[in-house]
């Protein structure tokens, strides 16, 4: 093993070394526990870092410096936030459904953490290699909707319920194009295993799925849906402060609120990780010469780019209206994703070069046409009639 390989596999070697202290019977369990602890530790600290990056970045976007009081350049702000959250009073509304109110954040954080088990973070670095990795990711991701419903219902608050209903409607609508965008990759690699998918993209950035016509469009679709799935701006209608006073989060405070917040960021990073795995070569280096940099650093570098993009978009775009949100999902993303699946099939069956012009022409036509449709769509009933204002 060369030094480069050793650094590349350092987390795995460390795990093996730690496991070797235990009796053989316990070893698989200990290995699992260590993987789980590593995932929780790494991504929870990434969550802390990304909240800081978000607050600083949003500040810079809005011409202000952002948090800069705690520690040098405000670096310890997440720590202060965490302490504040922990010692805050946990308020439960009097008529709330106590059990659901208590269970909702737990039921949300567990799937958010569970989906990381199938993300290959580096070469051989995956908590659970599973034949059905991609399906597992989406199946577990689908169950977060129920937790949000529990939060909204359990709070016994109109705004919470409204917010959670909006969130579920939005998540269901956007899950469809997202899964369809992922299906293109499954079609191309004929595998649901995330490790196989990453290995199919080895060799350099030109082998990544994002650099094929269908892959580019699928990545774009997937990214838009990822924004909506993690309830981030401009799709943050469910927790719109100005309309719904933060939706299903209204009645939560203290540690439970922190859990919701954490679940949002974990979900965002998990979906970004999935997008990287499916379209951007996972832990593969963009050029073969750069292979000396450890594979997990490539993964986290790409993840950081995604998080920055999320923050950048949040700082730029205004919130969508509810009907615009639904139109975008059903009238634009869904047809594009369906067409894209056909093109991916064409790509797989044809020898490659012939698929380029066909894909570009068809996708271009579809995007322009559907875009016009989208722009032309107005709320039903033509001119808005105000009942009470006139």
């Amino acid at each position, binding site marked *: 093993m060369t030094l480069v390989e050793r650094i590349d596999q350092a987390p795995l070697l460390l795990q093996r070394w730690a496991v070797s202290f235990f009796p053989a019977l316990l070893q698989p369990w200990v290995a699992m526990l260590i993987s789980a602890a590593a995932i929780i530790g790494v991504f929870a600290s990434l969550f802390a870092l990304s909240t800081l990056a978000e607050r600083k970045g949003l500040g810079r976007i809005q011409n202000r410096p952002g948090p800069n009081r705690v520690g040098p350049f405000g670096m310890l702000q997440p720590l202060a936030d965490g302490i504040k959250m922990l010692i805050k009073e946990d308020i439960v509304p009097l008529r709330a459904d106590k059990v*659901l109110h208590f269970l909702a954040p737990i039921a949300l954080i567990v799937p958010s953490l569970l989906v990381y088990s199938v993300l290959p973070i580096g070469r051989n670095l995956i908590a659970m290699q*599973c*034949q*059905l990795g991609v*399906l*597992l990711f*989406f*199946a*577990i991701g*689908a*169950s977060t*909707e*129920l937790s949000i*419903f*529990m939060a909204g*219902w359990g709070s016994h608050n109109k705004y919470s*319920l409204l917010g959670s*209903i909006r969130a*579920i409607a939005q998540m*269901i609508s956007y*899950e469809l194009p997202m899964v369809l965008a992922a299906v293109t990759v499954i079609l191309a690699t*004929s595998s*649901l295993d995330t490790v196989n998918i990453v290995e199919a993209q080895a060799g350099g950035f030109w082998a990544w799925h994002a650099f094929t016509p269908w892959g580019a469009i699928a990545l774009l679709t997937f990214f838009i849906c990822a924004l909506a799935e993690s309830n981030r701006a401009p799709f943050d209608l469910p927790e719109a402060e100005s309309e719904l006073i933060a939706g299903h989060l209204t009645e939560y405070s203290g540690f439970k609120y922190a859990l919701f917040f954490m679940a949002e960021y974990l979900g965002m990073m998990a979906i970004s990780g999935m997008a990287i795995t499916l379209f951007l070569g996972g832990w593969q280096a963009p050029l073969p010469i750069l292979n000396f940099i450890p594979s997990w650093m490539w993964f986290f570098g790409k993840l950081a780019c995604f998080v920055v993009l999320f923050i950048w978009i949040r700082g730029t775009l205004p919130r969508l209206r509810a009907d615009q949100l639904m139109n975008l999902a059903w009238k634009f993303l869904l047809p594009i994703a369906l067409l894209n699946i056909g093109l991916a099939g064409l790509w797989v069956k044809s020898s490659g070069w012939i698929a380029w012009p066909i894909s570009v022409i068809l996708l271009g036509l579809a995007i322009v046409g559907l875009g016009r449709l989208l722009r032309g769509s107005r709320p*039903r*009933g033509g001119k*808005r*009639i*105000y*009942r009470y204002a006139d």
Partner: protein
Amino acid sequence: MSIPFLIIAAVILASAWAAVSLRNLVHCGLCAALSFLATGTLYLYLNAEFLGLVQLMVYVGAVAVLILFTVLLTRPATEAADAVPTKRPAFWKGALIAITVGGAVASCLAVYAAPKASTAPELSIQEIGRLLTASQQNVLALIIVALLMTTALIGALLLAAPAEEDTKGGGA
């Protein structure tokens, strides 16, 4: 019978019983979701990984949410009508019939001599895909199911969409 199986079975049965006997319909829906989830876990336990994940996605991700949405959309009436689970005697009469049927079947099965245990079958996702698309009758079934689901989708939309006059007049 192994301990994991017993735990999963207990969760399935307990949450299913809660789902049919609780007063609050939202609780019923959530308990049903838990029962579906546990059933998915049972499939995973029985080596049917694909089926387990599909169960999770379809039942927990879609059907349970659909049920809860329906509960909310019809809430004012359900709160009044079903606050008490019907007339109590009727419920228990139903329960008696059902338990008799279920118990009879279960007791027959309890003495059922199972065929000799075979090795656990492995069915990879590639094989499932091949089975679904290569064998003649499965393709036909697949197409029929696809048609059925399209029909069901359109039918459900037509049934649940509000009548045209309801939507006129701005943000009613």
